[in-house]
């Protein structure tokens, strides 16, 4: 047994860690109470097997690549960072990337991750054509929109619960450069932020960083980052077409005492961040894709800033019609509480593709809270607002929502469960998350 946790370092639980080196090894590992783990960037308990956890990062081979079409076949443990570093210089990038590049293909499919382009271009799963799946029942099957389409739709966003993704075929986007033409807009409050996102629907990439320490009149003040892929002739002369992605340099070497994060330090950080960004607002400038897409990746192990007890991310999505009112209420409560950290992220989402995919047309808000005091009770109260507004929570970030919150948020759950049952009648595949939210105990 090893102790395992997700990126948020809460909860910390026991699970046997298996590291198969071959697909036969994976097949042997898929027995009672196991689930696949990619790079462990899910915050809570999604990538921890009820009894055993199957580490997939050894499967890092590209099977084939067609530069004429951008179609690629790869093993599930390939990291997006590897894909970007290898194929970026050849003029290809993933269509969708989340806020960190250190996620595996399997993890990106299983969470149907969204990027800053979800409002226009959809989620990661949209660009996946087929998947080689090792089901809980012990079959290896190829699933796609045409073949075993039920299993395909359940696997996109299915949090690993339909089986282990061994390989996938997907499409890459062809790009001229690895640079992004960025425009920063500053918004003085939540209304302005939402108006700005609304007005930026045609931008390829858009996201707002909210200063969640700002209160009353400033509530929801934020910086909106819009982005387009830069063409070769937009680059300065002599600039490389593809920037270098540095490995995280600065690491957080120890668990900072949770004292370091308090309402004063958080407020100061957010104030500085907001002012620096606001100064850049206005014109367009060209930035490397790395800081644009992955602002936190330059600091290794930043999750340790929250101290040993870990932290929780609360990421909800609220349908468009209720979004302004409910998000205002959540932000109000968070800023009154004062310990929501860094900057909150606000983003407009479109339709999700998989049965359990998180996105729905509306606005998503993500807030980080250190694990302490009455935080669990506080978040339960926020969940009530989310559920009442027809919203839901993101499973890849979740470590604590209740079964009722989950069931209310995911109406396709019954269909998902039926498909899961067909693929895995004995429920061999079980994660700590599925035990908490799905499985009768």
């Amino acid at each position, binding site marked *: 047994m090893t102790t395992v946790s997700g990126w948020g370092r809460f909860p910390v639980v026991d699970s046997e860690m298996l*590291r198969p*080196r071959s697909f036969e090894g994976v097949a042997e590992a898929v027995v009672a109470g196991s689930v696949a783990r990619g790079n462990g960037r899910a915050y809570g308990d999604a990538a921890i097997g009820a009894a055993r956890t199957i580490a997939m990062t050894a499967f890092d*081979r*590209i*099977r*084939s*690549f067609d*530069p004429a079409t951008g179609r*690629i076949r790869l093993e599930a443990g390939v990291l997006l960072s590897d894909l970007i570093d*290898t*194929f970026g210089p*050849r003029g290809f990038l993933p269509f969708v990337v989340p806020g960190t590049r250190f996620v595996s293909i399997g993890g990106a499919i299983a969470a149907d991750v969204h990027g800053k382009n979800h409002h226009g271009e959809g989620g990661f799963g949209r660009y996946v054509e087929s998947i080689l799946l090792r089901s809980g029942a012990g079959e290896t099957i190829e699933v796609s929109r045409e073949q075993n389409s039920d299993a395909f739709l359940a696997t996109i966003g299915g949090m690993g619960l339909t089986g282990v993704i061994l390989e996938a075929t997907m499409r890459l986007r062809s790009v001229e450069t690895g640079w992004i033409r960025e425009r920063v807009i500053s918004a003085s409050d939540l209304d302005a932020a939402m108006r700005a996102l609304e007005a930026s629907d045609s931008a390829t990439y858009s996201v707002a960083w909210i200063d969640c320490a700002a209160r009353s009149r400033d509530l929801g003040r934020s910086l909106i980052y819009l982005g387009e892929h830069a063409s070769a002739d937009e680059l300065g002369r002599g600039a490389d077409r593809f920037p270098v992605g540095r490995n995280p340099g600065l690491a957080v070497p120890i668990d900072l005492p949770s004292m370091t994060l308090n309402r004063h330090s958080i407020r100061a950080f957010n104030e500085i961040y907001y002012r620096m960004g606001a100064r850049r607002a206005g014109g367009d400038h060209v930035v490397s894709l790395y800081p644009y897409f992955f602002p936190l990746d330059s600091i290794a192990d930043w999750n340790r800033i929250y101290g040993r007890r870990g932290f929780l991310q609360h990421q909800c999505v609220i349908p468009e019609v209720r979004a302004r009112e409910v998000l205002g209420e959540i932000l109000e409560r968070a800023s009154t509480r004062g310990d929501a950290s860094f900057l909150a992220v606000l983003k407009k989402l479109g339709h999700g593709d998989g049965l359990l995919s998180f996105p729905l047309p509306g606005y998503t808000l993500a807030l980080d809270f250190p694990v302490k005091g009455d935080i669990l009770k506080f978040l339960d109260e926020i969940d009530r607002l989310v559920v009442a507004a027809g919203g839901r929570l993101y499973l890849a970030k979740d470590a604590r929502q209740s079964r009722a919150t989950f069931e209310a948020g995911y109406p396709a759950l019954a269909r998902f469960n039926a498909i899961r049952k067909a693929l895995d009648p004995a429920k061999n595949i079980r994660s700590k998350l599925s035990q908490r939210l799905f499985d009768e105990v």
Partner: protein
Amino acid sequence: MTSRKSVLVLGGSSDIGRAAARAFAKAGYDVGLAGRDVAALEPDAADLRARYAIEASTHTFDVLDTASFEGFVAGLPALPDVVISIVGLLGVQPAAESDLAHATTIMRSNYEGPSLILGLFAEKFLNRGSGTIVGVSSVAGDRGRASNYVYGSAKAGFSAFLSGLRARASRGGVHVVTVKPGFVRTKMTEGMKLIGPLTVEAPVVGDAILSAVENKTDVVYVSGKWRLVMLVIKTLPEAVFKKLKF
């Protein structure tokens, strides 16, 4: 025919072998992967082709089958520019203390086989007047330790072979590199207690091998810290050393 340079990796399915192959392919080399189970090498060859648009081939090679070596070299489609031996076997020291067969396998896998095959390539390279030979040895060969001296002594022999070969071959335009990785997180060391700050990941070793070849370095300690650690360990008097536990 392409004008690209080529590298042959003996022990191509090991983690360090795969990492070295990727590093060279990324730098534009065509790659040959050699190992016992040639079918198992095919996915890695495909990976290299897809990633770097180079040519990659696979070859059957067994380091214990020394009788096959001449045929193996003669059967290669072309003599590579660089040959790297990553073959090795850690074995189990306590078993090797009483099981002669196991001890023999460790010695042959780490010394006899790698030395003979690289010696053969050296002859061909000297005839041609160019080439680079890389032997992955170990810091364990710098001084015999109670906990792994069967492996360590074979690596010591291999290191000595490489340094002698280097002295001779350099006059004929052939360069020999000795690589001494310290702890590397690989299949071989899985489950072992490794000292964090002295441990590197396989890709770091792969990159170090490439840069040693391109910069004509003679001996590489992959992590600079190891050079220091081994300097201390090598200079401890025997009377002190035998009382230490490692």
